[in-house]
């Protein structure tokens, strides 16, 4: 794998740090006029998601990490693993719940997600920014209320619970922003 020096540390670069794959968020060059140059680097550990700050001397190097983002279609859940497929190659990956993490509540069969692979092993799953899901359970709204003020919880087919306006009923299909977990609109086919 390639070796990167501090002056090549840019946002988005994937490197190995303490044996974990990491992504560089930002790199600040710090140098007193008369003194040692440092790079202060904000780094996200791609395994844990934690953000840490580290300092390097100018010119220090880190090994690159073989991390790629691949678009994959979510196929099904067999109870132990969730199965994904690369549409172009039909190559399949099985991913355990721990790796999928909190985003599992947004996964709907057939949807195309981004799967982050490290040395070809799944590291994380990112759902589409917007998903279209059916409501499986919500309290009946008050008749005639179309204002949307207030809102109520609604359970979606994928397992997520979001707040929806009072007029939205069980069985309806809604569009949700997965980054904020917020209802966007009703969805009409």
């Amino acid at each position, binding site marked *: 794998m390639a070796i990167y020096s501090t002056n090549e540390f840019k946002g988005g670069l994937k490197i190995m740090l303490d044996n974990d794959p990491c992504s560089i968020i930002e790199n600040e060059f710090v140098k*007193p006029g008369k*003194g040692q140059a440092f790079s202060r680097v904000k780094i996200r550990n791609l395994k844990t998601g934690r953000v840490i700050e580290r*300092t390097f001397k*100018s010119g220090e190097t880190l090994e690159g990490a073989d991390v790629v983002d691949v678009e994959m279609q979510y196929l099904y859940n067999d109870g132990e693993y969730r199965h994904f497929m690369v549409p172009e190659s039909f190559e399949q990956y099985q991913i355990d719940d721990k790796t999928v993490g909190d985003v599992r509540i947004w996964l709907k069969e057939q949807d195309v997600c981004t799967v982050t692979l490290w040395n070809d092993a799944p590291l994380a799953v990112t759902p589409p920014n917007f998903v279209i899901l059916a409501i499986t359970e919500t309290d009946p709204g008050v008749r005639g209320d179309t204002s949307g003020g207030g809102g109520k919880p609604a359970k979606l087919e994928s397992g997520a619970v979001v707040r929806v306006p009072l007029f939205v009923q069980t069985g309806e299909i809604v569009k949700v922003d997965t980054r904020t977990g917020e209802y966007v609109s009703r969805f009409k086919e």
Partner: protein
Amino acid sequence: MQTSAVDIAWRPTCDFAALQLRAKLLAATREFFAFRSVLEVETPLLAPTTGTDPQLAFFETHYDCGLEQRTLYLQTSPEFAMKRLLAAGSGSIYQIGKAFRNGEVGRFHNPEFTLLEWYRVGFDLPQLMVEVAQLFDCWFAPYRPLLPTQTISYSEVFKRHTGLDALCFDFETYAAYAVAQQLADAVRLCGHEHSVWLDFLFSHQVQPHLGSKHLEMVYAYPACQASLARLNPQDARVAERVELFLQGVELGNGFFELTDAQEQEQRFENEQQLRQQKNLPSATKDLKFLAALQSGLPSCAGIAIGLDRVLMLLSENKSIDDVLSFSQNRI
């Protein structure tokens, strides 16, 4: 149509307001020194030697004039040439010009930058600091007045923000502090080098707090960071060096200048040795500068200020790219 990165790559990095502000700042600076009868000078950017400071990387160029082939260096600072003028009897002088430092690029760095450097014959460091405060007032008052300038000694400000004694290095104490502050990298990076520890802790823990709404002058640097300053005759643990900070950004560095040629030569040789130890390109000591010191540099105080950074803070920008016509990534 969408504008691609290539389409705008020819355009200036800064806006026209920044160009106008630069022109006004330069005019105000020249007026400031003309009023005080300080002479404006220019010295060569290309010279056969340059500074030996192991922390500064230089640009090498090739001079080709038929039989005369030699390496010339772009100057990292006009200091040596200006001191040769002082030794020749120029009296107080200033210069606004470019300086070059290889590999320095970032939010506060561009490898080619504008430096204002001046020397006051007969001034000591406190006198120079008064003049610096006046110049900052002249720059900032029309745009964003600063609160009164403050001064503090290095060891005092270091103690205030870290609790450590800057003048007395104790590896265990420094390392324990770094680990407790989640700066464990320091132990690996600094080892047993006092000066590197000071650079690390000062830049991480002290500097961000300096000069939130006022110019902060830090003086009496530890002797291991004397650079070209005299040591204090009353207390050889500290050097007569001052640094300027505003909003956590380092803006300038000044000295009560070292005039002792022997001591200067010794410092050059130490730096050359350090370069060798660290496998850095070797740097020849400037013999003409040493000869000038031998013939006699008048007692003087001098300072260099990074004008691009001053402009950046004056216009409340986040990066010096915002005040450069064409920054490194646009040349």
